[in-house]
């Protein structure tokens, strides 16, 4: 059989080319950022962070079919750790007036990775015991862990307690955020689009049948959970160095719900749809800003309306209604 239809098999694989392209675009936008309206930059940064959050949660909730309600908890771990790293190291390394672009970028990358890894570790600690629960029970346990993490930060004075951390250096730029969003999309896409990765879908569709074919459901779920938590942590780090101040309350279950809404609205397991939903749901409050008094009322009405009209997700055109 001719393999014309398939992506080129030789040389650099297609997804990698796409990633390099996306990173170049991110760099380009970063370089041009001086000419972009600061308000638009803010919105774009917000969109990028939400895309990372939504795409990574989609790996857990969409592709693997586990219902996690604790994504904001993992985000907070990344945010706090990354912020703690830069807050403690930046003044020592670069003195009070900040350093040159190169070294600060390295420090920031290190801080983000530290945050991401810490979140991944938290994901592993939460995931291993709780992933044997199913459906609503898993949802409530992840929600519980998310709340516990928030309370722990509230009570941990070295990280600011209930007041949170202030004066975080403003390292996050649009270029950073878009680059990480590209990496998150690439990682999730590559994981799922391989023979290994179809296992995520198989585990979601029928755990018993998947196990009977030699796939270890627990392992798949854990991988999804850990990778998802890692990117939530990265998003948290970016968020901290964008907002410059973080409090435990900002990562409570309302935030988790916000991310879950993006995933469901985009159509579970549909990466492109989830990205679009993240963009839309970030823009929506901005568009509604002129009617600030009615903003939340309209937002919730829209949410209900969308679910009534398009229950399969806003951007899912292939499949009909499930169940």
């Amino acid at each position, binding site marked *: 059989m001719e393999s014309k239809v398939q992506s080129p098999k030789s040389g650099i694989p297609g997804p990698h080319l796409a990633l390099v392209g996306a990173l170049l675009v991110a760099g380009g936008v970063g370089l041009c950022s001086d000419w972009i309206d600061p308000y638009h930059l803010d919105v774009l940064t917000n969109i990028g962070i939400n895309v990372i959050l939504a795409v990574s949660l989609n790996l857990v909730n969409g592709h693997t079919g586990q219902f996690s309600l604790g994504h904001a908890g993992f985000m907070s771990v990344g945010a706090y750790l990354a912020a703690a790293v830069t807050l403690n190291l930046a003044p020592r390394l670069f003195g009070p007036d900040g350093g040159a672009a190169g070294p600060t970028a390295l420090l920031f990358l290190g801080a983000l990775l530290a945050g991401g890894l810490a979140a991944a570790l938290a994901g592993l600690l939460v995931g291993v015991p*709780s992933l044997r*629960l199913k459906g609503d029970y898993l949802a409530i346990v992840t929600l*519980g862990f998310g709340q516990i993490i928030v309370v722990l930060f509230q009570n941990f004075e070295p990280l600011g307690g209930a007041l949170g951390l202030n004066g975080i250096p403003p390292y996050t730029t649009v270029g950073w955020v878009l680059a990480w969003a590209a990496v998150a999309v690439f990682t999730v896409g590559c994981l799922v689009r391989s023979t290994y990765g179809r296992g995520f879908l198989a585990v979601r569709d029928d755990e018993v049948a998947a196990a009977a074919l030699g796939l270890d459901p627990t392992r798949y779920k854990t991988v999804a959970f850990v990778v998802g938590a890692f990117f939530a942590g990265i998003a948290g780090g970016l968020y901290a160095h964008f907002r410059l101040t973080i409090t435990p309350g900002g990562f409570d279950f309302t935030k988790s719900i916000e991310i879950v809404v993006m995933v469901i609205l985009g159509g*579970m397991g549909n990466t492109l749809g989830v990205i679009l939903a993240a963009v839309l749901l970030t823009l929506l409050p901005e568009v509604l800003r002129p009617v600030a008094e009615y903003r939340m009322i309209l937002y919730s009405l829209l*949410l209900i309306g969308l679910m009534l009209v398009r*229950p399969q997700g806003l951007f899912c055109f292939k499949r009909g209604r*499930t169940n």
Partner: protein
Amino acid sequence: MQEFLQQLVNGLSLGAIYALIALGYTMVYGVLRFINFAHSEVFMVGAMTGWAVGRQLPQGTWWGGLVVLGAAMLVCALLGMTIERLVYRPLRGTATLNVLITAIGVSLLLQSVFQHPRVFGATPQLFPPVFPERNFALGGVALSSNQLVVIVVAALLMVGLELVVHRTRLGMAMRAVALNPQAAQLVGVNINAVIALTFALGSALAGAGGVLYALNYPTVEPLMGVMPGLKAFVAAVLGGIGSIPGAALGGLILGTVETFVGGSAWLSTYKDAIAFAVLILILLCRPTGLLGRVAPEKV
């Protein structure tokens, strides 16, 4: 010992409120298999109704208190039925996650409507002392009349619910719908009516819970439902979601544990985390909650 008994009484009165709210979660879950996240806002509306009606009445009378309670239950029953009719019924049969998101939407809607300055606004308001206030001392344990009202009303309502579910035709229909909605329809149960009444019952209990909660923590505000609602939900899962005695038990356990933790000097700041920690521990040992049914998966 006295300290212990005092905390136990406080814990039971808090737990009774959690139990009342948890019953609504568990009943809706039982018949529809979904978590009605808007339930905590129904609770809030109950408290708000109590506040609005209570201000118009003379304070400190038994009849006034009962009118407030009845009004809150009635308004909430109607609200619950309206939400079900307008939002959940059209979604019946679609994936539970969609219904869940819609429930979150309804929850946000109620919160933001009440946060609007023309409706209520964001500032907390004092809840009027509608019941007579008296303090009883039982062997050194202080018991306020409000606590007594909470415990007595909650107990009566729970016993009443148990009777409805096990002794009436409606209750039998509710159980049949919970077990197998299609089969229930095939024996002639009007499933829409049963589901609407389930929402009405559950919401009325939440309304009563709202008034009782506001009596003891005497302020009301639009976001007041979030935390008690979440904890009541935890209580429902703890007891085994879908199980009515489970919800009552879960609520009492959670209220008691929380009060004891809140009363200890070291742990009080971890109060909100402890509720979840208890839940997680219990679920890890008994994945379907305390009184939930353990069904071996059909393969």
